[in-house]
């Protein structure tokens, strides 16, 4: 019996630890959350019977503004990261000098060497009313009064784009790196100009990287809570903040659960798009 080729039941044993892990740390909590989201709020915010749909009502009612804002912020973050990240990844991966490529990648992941919280606090200093940016603009006489930058949706966007940008660049870099430029020659040979060659050959063939990067940026952005907490104030409040509050001291666990379930549904939908276009395509090749 060859373990490396095993197609029968025994190969399943290899996956057993992972299945156990998933069961205890993922399926079980998920199931609990779903159940709790249909229960009523008891004293101190815990869940109790009877079952109710009230929390979903509120989620899609009063909180829909925040839900939509979260999706909007995550979408804009993803799109901006993509528009800056794709050309950058293209630039890096087409450099002939390997050392230069590695240096560029090093600078892209350099921010990861410091704590995320610290980096986000740094943005407070930059964006504050008396912050660096306002100070510079004032001293140049471009503005009369400090701009309101901190505690806005804009600040959240800046923080998220800054924080998740590497997750967009790296997968795209990898896919362009793998791309063979003989296909560009082939497209040119068949009469396609540079523009058409890019959109009909290069982009589709590097799409797996684009989709992976987009998923890696969108998913954590939609559920972000540290960045909006520190930079967004009330105007930049996101669903992640709402959820974290419900599980705190005088919160509402069933409501928090309902919000979580809806957020997970949003994430799942994006993943479905990814699977449909990304994995499918790669599988075909």
């Amino acid at each position, binding site marked *: 019996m060859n373990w490396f080729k095993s197609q029968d039941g025994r190969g399943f044993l290899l996956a057993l630890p992972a299945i156990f892990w998933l069961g205890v740390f993922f399926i079980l909590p998920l199931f609990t959350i779903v159940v709790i989201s249909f229960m009523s709020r008891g004293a101190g915010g815990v869940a109790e019977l009877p079952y109710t749909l009230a929390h979903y009502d509120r989620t899609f009612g009063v909180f829909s503004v925040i839900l939509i804002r979260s999706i909007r912020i995550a979408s804009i973050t993803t799109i901006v990261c993509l528009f800056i990240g794709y050309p950058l990844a293209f630039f890096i991966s087409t450099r002939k000098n390997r050392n230069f490529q590695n240096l560029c990648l090093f600078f892209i992941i350099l921010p990861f060497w410091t704590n995320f919280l610290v980096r986000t606090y740094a943005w407070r200093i930059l964006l504050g009313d008396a912050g660096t940016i306002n100070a510079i603009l004032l001293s140049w006489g471009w503005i009369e009064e400090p701009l309101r930058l901190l505690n806005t949706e804009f600040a959240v966007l800046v923080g998220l784009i800054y924080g998740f940008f590497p997750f967009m660049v790296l997968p795209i870099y990898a896919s362009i790196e793998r791309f063979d430029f003989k296909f560009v*020659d082939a497209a040119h040979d068949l009469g396609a100009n540079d523009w058409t060659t890019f959109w009909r050959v290069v982009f589709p063939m590097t799409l797996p990287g684009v989709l992976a990067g987009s998923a890696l940026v969108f998913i954590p952005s939609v559920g972000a809570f540290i960045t909006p907490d520190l930079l967004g104030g009330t105007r930049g409040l996101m669903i992640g903040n709402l959820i974290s509050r419900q599980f705190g001291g005088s919160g509402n666990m069933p409501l928090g659960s309902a919000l979580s379930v809806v957020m997970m549904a949003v994430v799942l939908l994006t993943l479905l798009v990814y699977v449909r276009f990304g994995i499918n395509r790669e599988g075909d090749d």
Partner: protein
Amino acid sequence: MAYDIRLKNVVKVFSSGKHKGVVAVDNVSLDIEDGEFFALLGPSGCGKTTTLRMIAGFEQPTEGSILIRDEPMEHVPPFHRPVNTVFQDYALFPHMTVLQNIMFGLKMEGLSGDAAKQRAYEALELVRLPEVANRRPSQMSGGQQQRVALARALVKRPAVLLLDEPLGALDLKLRKQMQYELKSMQQQVGITFIYVTHDQEEAMTMADRIAVMSEGRVLQVGSPRDIYEQPQSRFVADFIGETNFISGTLESHDNGVGHVRLAQDTVVDVQMPKNFSLSSGAVTIPIRPERIGLLPNGNDSPFHNMEDITILTGHLLDSQYIGTDTRYTVKIPGDNEIVVRIQNVDYLETVDFEIGQEVQVFWSLKSTHVLDH
């Protein structure tokens, strides 16, 4: 005479990367005629692909000019040149079906819909693969991909088709079959083919004319027969088929016949090429093993009294049975060792030679030739 492609003193120097100043193509001039099957033949690294890529427009010549149908191509990008390429590893777009691959080039011409589809199917018919239209390149064998690559290029009806070792990845049997098919396809569509290969047999069987390249230079251009029978350099003689090189000294010549001394008492006659650079001095006589006859010494050769036959005595050093032929190695005067190939047939009386025995080798003046080095 209409020339489809002209290369005038084309030089290509690659200066990027670590190896500064690689001269990939060195002063190449070629005139390729309308409708010709033209082969670029040479060992790996001699600049064949680079030459082809300059014609296609993927590389710019460092010096010299390229004309396609009398138009200078200097500022014409690849997508505006009336040539198409069959790439060495096909370069079929993996994210498109076969049909989409073939229609890609038509779409770029603004042709779409049923008209494009019909032409694509015609191209698939031409390469005899109509049933794979909806497959992906990865779902096909190497031979099928090769045909699709051909169809994708031919569907554009280019003036000239450039093929870079298109059969290199196929196994021997399929390669032979495709050689035949390519040749007949070329005659059918009447498009000029420039065919890059390092396989001399492939070039010989398919091409109308061959340019033999070495180290970036074109050494000789001619029909397969010219190249084989009248090689103008040692490299060409050696690269194409098997050749003996007999060294001697040219003493004199008259009426196109040179007299070359191999040893003190041995002078042989050779055909002299026109405009031969030397009138005397050290020369090499290239002669093909199958053009030499072999008889036991003492036999009265049936050719003894004929003019234009050279007969030398030597002794047999080795014999090697290789199926279709037997290869004999014979030592002849002047410290020359030559290989003689005799076909193994049984409608003639066969002679059993013994190693070490005295033999006669003989050849006709017509089979001879002389090189100046």
